[in-house]
């Protein structure tokens, strides 16, 4: 189990939270997702064996939110 924090560009609409949380939550190996709206970060806990950080990043980017780090 590993937890990462990804910094996104400043989030403005609260509906983004739902969007990201729902989509990431459906990913295989992702245990817990929390979008920290006010600091514009995504905190994700995941199983390293079944999913890679890169994949999580890619999914978020596909939703239209580039990760900064």
């Amino acid at each position, binding site marked *: 189990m590993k937890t990462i924090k990804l910094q996104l560009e*400043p989030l*403005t*609409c*609260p*509906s983004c939270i*739902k*969007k990201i949380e*729902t*989509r990431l939550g459906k990913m295989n190996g992702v245990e817990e997702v*929390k*979008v*920290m*709206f*006010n*600091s514009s*970060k995504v905190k994700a806990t995941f199983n390293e064996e079944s999913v890679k950080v890169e994949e999580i990043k890619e*999914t978020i980017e*596909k*939703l*239209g939110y*580039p990760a900064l780090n």
Partner: protein
Amino acid sequence: MLLKINKFKNHITAIAGFLLVLALVTHFMDLTVLKQAALLITTVIAGIPIFIKAFQALRMKVFSIELLVAIAVIGALFIGEYVESAVVTFLFLFGDYLEARTLQKTRSSLKELIDMAPQEAVVWRGGEEVTVEIDKVEVGDHVIIRSGGKVPVDGSVISGQASLNEAAVTGESVPKMKSKDDKVFSGTIVDSGYMEIIAEKVGDDTTFAKIIELMEEAQDSKSKTEKFLDKFANVYTPAVVILSVLVYLITRDLHIAITFLVVACPGALVIGAPVSNVAGIGNGAKNGVLVKGGEVMDKFSKVDTIVFDKTGTLTKGKPEVTDIKVFGEYEEEDVLRLVAQAETVSEHHLGRTIVKKANEKGMELSIKPTNVEVMKGNGIHVTIGVNHLSIGNKKLMDADGIHIKDEVSAYAIEREKLGNTAIFAAIDGKIVGIFSIADQIREDAVEALTRMRKNGIKKMIMLTGDNKHTAELVAKKLGLDEFHAELLPENKVEWVKKLKEEGHVVAMAGDGINDAPAIATADIGLAMGEGGTDVSMETADVVLMADKLMQFSHAYSLSKATIRNMKQNTFFAVGTVFVLLAGVLAGSVHLASGMFIHEASVLLVILNAMRLIRFNHRNIERERQVQVAEV
């Protein structure tokens, strides 16, 4: 490509705005073709970012507000309402821009704090000064800080002295003098002077890094109101979609159905409560009060009973030996030396006060005590050389079966009535002296307590491990409702439990490790402590970084203001939605005007929350000026 469009969103918004004005001008000049063209181009240009987001969401099979707007715009184009399609796309982008700008303001408090983080440090490496990046500093490094420089890590001063602005950690901008053996915190700034420190905590372990971490978590930890609103939005959004379908089926009017769909988007509803929280928590952070999240704000605002620890909370917690009275054959010097030697092993603040007194007199305390036995809350037993010592309160003497003569007892009571703590020292079963130690009430205690009472606290209780007489004196001076003395840490927990069972909402304020259990038991636990200790920062719900009771009072009124603000926003948002929906059904609100009111309501709740950033600003400024004048 997609990212680029995102980047130029502001330009797109500006161009769309310009085209809309052009359309208005051509409208008055009766150039219908030009007007329609301008409106169409506006729709297309402003629509691009919206459609991209909508498409992305659709591809990932998640719901998004852009999708709703996209449907509405296509619908509007379909029925030939070019004005509406242009205005709606523009307003959506423009609203987004304004929201980003204003949200930035509500988030600014935390951003300012993060910006105070030091970037580099000057350290001694291999006999010379080198400037290194902040994450290259290690524990034990010898760090140099000059005037104007930032303290890069937590540590202790080993030489030099400087006046430090600790606002980043304590919220207090009045500079403080620091010299040898004083603790300094990462993020604080050397106003003037020079010092060298040894790094004790680096990277994510520093107090400053922990504050940032806590604040980030706090801003996004949801209050009950927010959780409720989230659930509401979860039901509400699909309900609106179904309703709009129903509206279409009944009225057979696509226009009304689409307007209904867009206007009913729960924008202000979703954002109303969180912005209040963020602004409130931000205000706290700026003033040295860490409130851990919306739930804490909510509960704190309902508190009606406060339980205080005495030492270090209501009093300064920096006691001094005011008198040493000897009984028997030992000289004052010898009693002090022996007792101080014994107390070198003690963690208790009263013990340390005695050691400090001996140090001040330049005494050598090199003999290590043996057979150390700490009687928690009562005192210690040790052996020094051939002597067996018992040092502590009256209970310890009684427990050890040490006889207390009437004159000794009378003297102790007399000292206690004067506000001292009397420490009995016995050597080989005979009392040889009494140490009087006194701790002064904080200067801001009376004012802070008066204000909190005015703001709605009904009951104030003091719980202390100290003796009855001292406790009574402090309680009387501060006008407390109740006090209970000679308690152990677990007794404090019992008291807090009892108060909770009686139906009070209890806040417990304390310092240090011994209060941690009671702090954890209370509805709201407050930790006082300069810079905060790790334990208190983790167990407490609210941390007062500058060690001031006025911060407590500020935090309390802030929580009430935040919750009030949140309620205003919620009522306003719910009200707006109902008015809009009714308006749509009655036919008096159209797509464009509905969108306008919708965006305006979102902005209004943000603006309302922004008032919290400056909450109590004037009072705090005034106080600071008085303090600076005193300094």
